[in-house]
């Protein structure tokens, strides 16, 4: 009888933990899962024949809009490359001067990007320009429904079975 009571207690607390977790995760659906923003213009200043190189990583959610605006000197050319880390998706864009393009990474994850800006050899004096990025990335909360409900329902099952184990009290 004592063991049964203890088992009921364990089931009660495990169930409570699962239900609380499930409900909390379910409420994440109603929070904004957005992110992103725009980085300030990255200034580029190069002598003729020089180039700069930048490599970095970005984490994007399920749905991403990435807009890049270049305002470079016409004699400056750029090459932008983006690759999914651990995937096959790649994006490449090269051009010169003023340009606008947008990139839509297909799936959530970490992306590697590289920038190469080169100033033409025959330019006279220092060349200036800047690059600006606007990122809008947000996730679909769908996965939280299943995870949250999974936790909550299994927790409820534990709670109910703890009631069953506890049995009926004897009435004097």
């Amino acid at each position, binding site marked *: 009888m004592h063991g049964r009571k203890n088992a009921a207690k364990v089931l009660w607390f495990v169930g*409570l*933990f699962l239900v*609380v*977790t499930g*409900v*909390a*995760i379910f*409420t*994440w659906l109603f*929070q*904004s*899962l957005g*992110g*992103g923003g725009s*980085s300030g213009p990255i200034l580029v200043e*190069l*002598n003729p024949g*020089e*180039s*700069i*190189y*930048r*490599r*970095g*990583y*970005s*984490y*994007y*959610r399920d749905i991403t809009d990435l807009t890049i605006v270049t305002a470079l000197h016409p004699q400056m050319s750029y090459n932008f490359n983006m690759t999914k*880390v*651990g995937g096959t998706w790649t994006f490449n864009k090269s051009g010169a001067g003023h340009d606008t393009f947008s990139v839509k990474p297909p799936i*959530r*994850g*970490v992306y590697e990007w590289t920038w190469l800006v080169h100033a033409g050899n025959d330019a006279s004096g220092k060349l200036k320009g800047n690059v600006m990025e606007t*990122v809008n*990335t947000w*996730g679909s909360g769908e*996965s*939280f429904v299943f*995870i949250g409900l999974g936790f909550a329902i299994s927790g409820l099952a534990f709670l109910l079975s703890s009631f069953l184990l506890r049995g009926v009290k004897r009435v004097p």
Partner: protein
Amino acid sequence: MFLSVFRWEFLSGRRFYLVFLIYFLVLFSSGTFTSESWTVEVKYPDYVSKEFLTPGSMIDVWWNASSLWWFLFPLVTAYAVFMISYEFDKGILRTYLLSNVGKRTLFSAKLLSILLGLLIPLVASLLIVYALADLMLFSSTPLEVYVNLPRRLLMYTSMLYPMIGIATLCSVAFRKPLYAFAVPLAGVYVLNMARLTGISAYIPPQCYPEFQGSIGLMPIGWFLNELSMVLPTVVTSSIAIVAAYLIFIRRDMT
């Protein structure tokens, strides 16, 4: 002796449900993830810089320190009042003392159960939150997901410690549970509303901006800076806890 007193203090009665409530609120409030961009290599004609980065450091939990503070403070105070209020526990205290449990043992068991009662839900919810931030990354390399965890824990703990200090002192100093609960709350919130850099205003929101914009592993300089910002709070809270201890062991239990 200490262990059995601690077990009784931590698990008995309805106190444990407050731990569940704190767990729920922390989990509830930290579901927003932030994602970031990080430049690891820059090569200019006369300048080269490179740094190391792991995928897990790209994602972090967006955590609004001030709002968490606002709802956690009443809860922590209630928890401390339930734990060490004299009026609530008068009978139990007498039983303890009759059974040769020293006041020191009793106080440290109660304090430890308050600390664990706050830290356990915190660690549990952070472990879940980071795992859910990126399930794919978690399933391939689980440890990378938790890169930011120590930093967040430090932040939460530096916020919780003053709460524990204030709440412990008040619940020992005021005999009536209602006063023990209401006086610190009123004090903290009124001071805050009056913009007198009250107790609740000065730690978390101050140390928060340091963390807000930065994603990734914390450089050692920042870490030390953070610790120095938290230091006055830690000292004040330690004084509060020592004062609570002195009041507790000198109080007449009859």
